[in-house]
């Protein structure tokens, strides 16, 4: 791999990578089982430079912001490299957000250019939010049909300037990306990630899970997600490895891709890992009884033989059929984005498939701790990565306190939010809002959150305040959304749910009509943001002088209620 200590910026490292492995394959793109594209590092460079020149011709200079809204595909990475080549700041936005949310973040980020896919652009351009993002000067859309109505956008593929672009250097402390960790409904949290954040994180991660030419990484998590950006782009590229993109994430194509492309690494969120587990278990359950017993016996042998460390070659021999289904070359499944149930991790490890679970957050530059598998521990999120200082703040009698992080991977701050930044990074320590403790062997264990938020199995951060918008003007005296575990701490990261706390008007009854109205508004939210129950509270909410709800105080009062009896399911 490249010696990243020598580099000042993501763009500089990527530029060298493209020149170091010109004939190695860097990208494979498949659509519904059919391979659509295969690019070498040299071909990648040839496609990226005209985009970089086009950006420069549009006046994009150091520090200007350029947004990408795309599904996982080759043009995402090509465009990102072009942006870094210009010394500009990349704003990777989630293609899964609703158009109005995307416009909100485009406006907040101050992006001058948007690069997107034609299909996404059709939805975006039809959304009324467009008028608000006056900062946007040009839009480039990929894969538009020749005579399509571009609604003011340009064809990405037609960016063919004559001259070569000029590489614009950046310093380590300059902002490489603005990554939104949440906040589309309330305060947008645009994490300003420096070049140093990425360079240091990449060195730390690849010291445990190395890439090399010939490695194939299956990119399933959206590339705007901090994990995929690191292990599905920057990490593999600085090591000469290849990234496989699927244009659709239908489970049947994902399963097929493992064997077809002999995948080495993949990163998954718990939801996808559990889906794979369900699929495998269903196949095991269908086996005739003698075969099922034999499988159990082999699994048990594998478990004892890999107790102290993984032995992939041995596991592949013992459980050949299972490993063949995964292509036979899988080194590890990296699991992140949310907490994973230990039994799911153990299920895969017992089959000889290493599962590297860890803990991290965008604000800390992705991963903070990762299991090194020496030995495998399903009950922890691993030890701190090299270069990470992790401390427990204000531990209680059981040693549990807030997890804080100090490292060169911690973000510079939240865009346009100095007060929020000051609350989050105190004396150089990032306050994660997650509760944890170290066990005697130095592994971090997590025990819930201090923050009024949930993280879904899809790895989505949902802040309670961000979903309140849909309940505005609800015909009740007042309402407030809480994470159930914020009110009633559980010392667990499991079963995180949002609740709507309602205070009715004097004499008002909780009618079926009101419940239906709440249900209808709830369904306006994307499924993972929805509240799962209603709590009726019969006293006035505590308010600040400016009439804002004192959420912490209200949560303390609500905690006196019986959790099970108080929640009315929606």
């Amino acid at each position, binding site marked *: 791999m490249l010696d990243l200590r020598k580099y000042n910026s993501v763009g500089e490292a990527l530029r060298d990578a493209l020149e170091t492995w010109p004939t190695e394959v860097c990208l494979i793109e498949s659509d519904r089982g059919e391979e659509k594209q295969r690019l070498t590092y040299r071909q990648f460079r040839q496609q990226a430079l005209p985009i970089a020149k086009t950006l420069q011709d549009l006046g994009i200079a150091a520090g200007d912001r350029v947004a990408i809204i795309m*599904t996982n595909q080759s043009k995402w990475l090509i465009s990102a490299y072009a942006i870094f080549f210009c010394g500009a700041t990349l704003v990777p936005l989630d293609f*899964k957000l609703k158009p109005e949310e995307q416009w909100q973040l485009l406006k907040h980020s101050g992006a001058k250019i948007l690069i997107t896919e034609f299909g996404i652009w059709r939805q975006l351009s039809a959304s009324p939010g467009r008028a608000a993002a006056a900062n946007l000067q040009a839009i480039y859309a990929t894969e538009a049909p020749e005579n399509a109505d571009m609604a003011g956008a340009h064809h990405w593929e037609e960016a063919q300037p004559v001259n070569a672009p000029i590489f614009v250097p950046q310093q380590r402390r300059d902002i490489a990306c603005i990554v939104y960790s949440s906040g589309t409904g309330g305060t947008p949290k645009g994490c300003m990630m420096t070049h140093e954040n990425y360079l240091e994180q990449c060195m730390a991660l690849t010291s445990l899970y190395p890439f090399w030419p010939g490695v194939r990484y299956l990119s399933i998590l959206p590339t705007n997600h901090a994990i995929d950006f690191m292990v599905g782009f920057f990490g593999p590229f600085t090591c000469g490895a290849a990234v496989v993109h699927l244009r*659709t994430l239908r489970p049947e194509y994902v399963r097929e891709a493992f064997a077809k492309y002999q995948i080495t690494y993949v990163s998954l969120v718990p939801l996808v890992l559990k889906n794979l587990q369900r699929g495998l278990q269903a196949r095991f359950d269908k086996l005739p009884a003698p075969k099922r017993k034999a499988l159990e016996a082999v699994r048990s042998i594998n478990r004892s033989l890999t107790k102290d460390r993984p032995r992939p070659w041995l596991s592949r021999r013992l459980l050949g059929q299972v490993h063949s289904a995964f292509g036979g070359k899988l080194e590890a499944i990296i699991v992140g984005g949310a907490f994973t149930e230990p039994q799911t991790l153990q299920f895969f490890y017992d089959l000889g498939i290493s599962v590297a679970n860890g803990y991290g957050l965008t604000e800390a530059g992705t991963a903070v701790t990762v299991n090194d598998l020496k030995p495998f521990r399903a009950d922890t999120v691993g030890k701190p990565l090299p270069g990470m200082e992790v401390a427990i703040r204000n531990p209680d009698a059981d040693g549990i306190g807030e997890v804080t992080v100090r490292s060169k991977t911690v973000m510079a701050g939240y865009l346009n939010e100095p007060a929020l930044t000051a609350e989050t990074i105190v004396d150089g320590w990032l306050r994660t809002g997650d509760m944890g403790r170290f066990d005697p062997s130095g592994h971090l264990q997590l025990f819930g959150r201090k923050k009024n938020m949930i993280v879904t199995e899809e790895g989505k951060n949902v802040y309670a305040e961000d979903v309140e918008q849909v309940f505005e003007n609800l015909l009740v005296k007042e309402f407030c959304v809480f994470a159930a575990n914020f009110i009633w701490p559980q010392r667990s990261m499991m079963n995180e749910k949002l609740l709507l706390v309602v205070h009715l008007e004097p004499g008002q009854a909780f009618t079926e009509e009101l419940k239906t109205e709440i249900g209808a508004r709830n*369904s306006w939210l994307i499924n993972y943001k929805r509240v799962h129950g209603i709590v009726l509270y019969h006293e006035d909410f505590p308010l600040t002088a400016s009439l804002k709800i004192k959420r912490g105080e209200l949560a303390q009062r609500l905690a006196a209620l019986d959790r099970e009896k108080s929640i009315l399911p929606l």
Partner: protein
Amino acid sequence: MCMRTIEQTTQEILELATKQFKVPAGSLAAGDDFYGKLGIDSLQALEMLSRLENHFHIELPDYEVQGVSDFKTLAERIQARL
């Protein structure tokens, strides 16, 4: 040219979902939220989409059904591709 009406498309979607998730016949309605009614996650919704694509002989990009959670809107997206 599309030979199905939106009502027919919706009905076929409801029948396919009924079979796939083994819910009682007639228990699903066009306006139902399929995440809530079927108790499925986003991956299971994608699996349902695969079956619908095969049935209707169309391809729906993932982003086009992102945020869609009721059968009626799903039917409209499919109808537009028929």
